[in-house]
């Protein structure tokens, strides 16, 4: 069994291709596993469409459902295509005030996304910061911070969000409408930071024991700097997975709070508020006022969840 005669000495490693950062991304294992998974690709595409469509709502929505001047009660309760009495101008029907459902969904989706995203950002920043400090500092500081996180974790996040939201709303009674969005972002964010903190704390403690950190300390780099520039990039992997899944949870939480009436007000509704609004018309037969915002919510959350699942599997070294 002879190999074909080689021209000269055994070939060296293939020449490393000079790739820019974008090129490296597309050559990476992550992108490969993305391309391999049709589910991930579809979910990614759908999520992309949802996000894009929602963010550009003001420009591409067919109507402005919240401009009172353009609304007319004569347009109310128009059913969606292809039912009897539907109109092409309002493909998904209208609600009790004559607002176009499609546009309302786009605006509502935008609000849901903005709130969800901000809440996750809040939770991530707070959680990662606390996790880094606890993991790096160790000792009493770590014990205290983790105790707080553990105690908070004994209570379901939705309950905490509900309570915080309820209390702050009750306290800020008059300012309710103007501040509601901040209150909700704060409530959801504060209910979700512990998982980030615990994960980051664990990873930080692992990294802290590694040589590169010790080397940095020996050189005299300050603690906060080490945490930010050395440790942080290495612990971000799992954070990304948690954040993606958390985004779906945050969007659902906001919808739930709005549905319960303690979320965003009907004047600037999110998908949850729209669903709540439509609930009153279920029995009289105008099901589309609730079902379409509901479907939009589900599609958005489902695609984010799928992406999160795929991301977690792709970043899990043990499953390769």
């Amino acid at each position, binding site marked *: *069994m*002879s*190999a*074909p005669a*080689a021209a000269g*000495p*055994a*070939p060296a*490693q293939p020449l490393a291709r000079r790739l820019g950062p974008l090129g490296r991304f597309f050559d990476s294992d992550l992108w490969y596993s993305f391309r391999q998974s049709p589910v991930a690709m579809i979910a990614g595409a759908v999520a992309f469409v949802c996000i894009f469509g929602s963010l550009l709502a003001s420009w591409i929505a067919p109507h402005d459902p919240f401009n009172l001047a353009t609304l007319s009660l004569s347009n109310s309760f128009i059913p969606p295509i292809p039912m009897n009495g539907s109109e092409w101008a309002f493909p998904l029907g209208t609600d009790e005030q004559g607002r176009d459902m499609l546009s309302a969904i786009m605006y509502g989706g935008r609000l849901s996304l903005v709130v969800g995203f901000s809440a996750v950002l809040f939770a991530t920043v707070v959680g990662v910061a606390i996790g880094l400090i606890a993991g790096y500092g160790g000792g009493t500081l770590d014990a205290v911070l983790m105790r707080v996180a553990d105690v908070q974790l004994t209570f379901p996040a939705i309950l905490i969000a509900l309570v915080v939201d309820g209390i702050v709303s009750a306290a800020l009674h008059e300012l309710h409408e103007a501040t509601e969005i901040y209150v909700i972002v704060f409530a959801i964010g504060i209910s979700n930071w512990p998982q980030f903190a615990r994960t980051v704390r664990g990873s930080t403690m692992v990294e802290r024991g590694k040589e590169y950190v010790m080397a940095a300390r020996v050189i005299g780099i300050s603690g906060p700097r080490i945490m930010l520039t050395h440790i942080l990039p290495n612990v971000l992997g799992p954070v990304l997975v948690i954040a993606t899944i958390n985004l779906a949870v945050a969007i659902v939480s906001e919808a739930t709070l709005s549905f319960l009436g303690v979320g965003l007000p009907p004047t600037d509704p999110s998908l949850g508020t729209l669903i709540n609004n439509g609930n009153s018309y279920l029995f009289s037969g105008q099901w589309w006022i609730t079902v379409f915002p509901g479907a939009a919510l589900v599609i958005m959350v489902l695609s984010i969840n799928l992406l999160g699942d795929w991301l977690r599997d792709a970043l899990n070294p043990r499953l390769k």
Partner: protein
Amino acid sequence: MALPEVPLPEVPLLEVPLLEVRELSVEFPTRRGVLKALDTVSFTIETGEVLGVVGESGAGKSLTGAAIIGLLERPGRISGGRILLEGRRIDTLSQEEMRRIRGRRIGAIFQDPLTTLNPLYTVGRQLAETMQVHLGISDAEARRRAVGWLEQVGIPAPAERIGAYPHEFSGGMRQRVVIALALCAEPQLVIADEPTTALDVSIQAQIITLIKRLAREHGTAMMLITHDMGVIAETADRVAVMYAGRIVELGPVRRVIRHPAHPYTDGLMASIPTLAGRLGRLTQIEGAMPRLSAIPPGCPFAPRCPKVFSRCTAERPELMAAGETAAACWLYAPASAEAAHV
């Protein structure tokens, strides 16, 4: 070296080796192509013999053991060759048939006793269930034998320890339990994959002695996989040296250690620190074992070999006679072929 494609006739036990591995190849499909992790590995193990398999990490030793016992992890698969137990092929058996062989005819000892034992079950339970599955004995009998096994492996107060959980034992004791588990169904062959690597040095000697003694007492053959040449020297009758998924030398242990034929084995022996003789710098073999995705054509050791010559990079050598051992090295090519190439 094509073998005739006829199934082996049934021959009396004494005339075939207990285990025969012929041209075994294992490959792993990956996204960058197919990696050949084992490349036409061949060796035999006779009844009661201890074959040491030595080599660096990644040389394919554990894979060989896993392939023999039928526990190759996906996506790895056997891509060529055969494995014969007492003359009958076992690499083509169904899952269920293979399961009956495992434990009963071929046993296994893994490296880390802490993770090898189920933490939620007592050692007695794990011993009893193994014996009951293969030997069909009653609960009481299984329990009695389990105590007997614990005693054989040297665990003090076995009758009390039978109800203990794995974490209640120290590392060395746990590995003794693992050994008992591997032997309790009375297999003919045990594949021991780095049985002492996870243990303290002071314990290693005890475990090795135990394994040797038990193997001799029960007439069990062993495939002892390790990267520690000292263990091989102590325990093995023959040794196979692996490199980059192939066997590069195979022969009686005394011979291979004292007069290594293959340059790699020579380098391995020379790099073992010894207190005897002059204390000078440790020799090391320059370079590193090639990655599976970048194995050079010809002899895989050629880039690092101090005795390399032109034929080495052109053709891949098979195992050929080199004195009392066999080595996969063109230095030992039959004279006529040699003269034509050099």
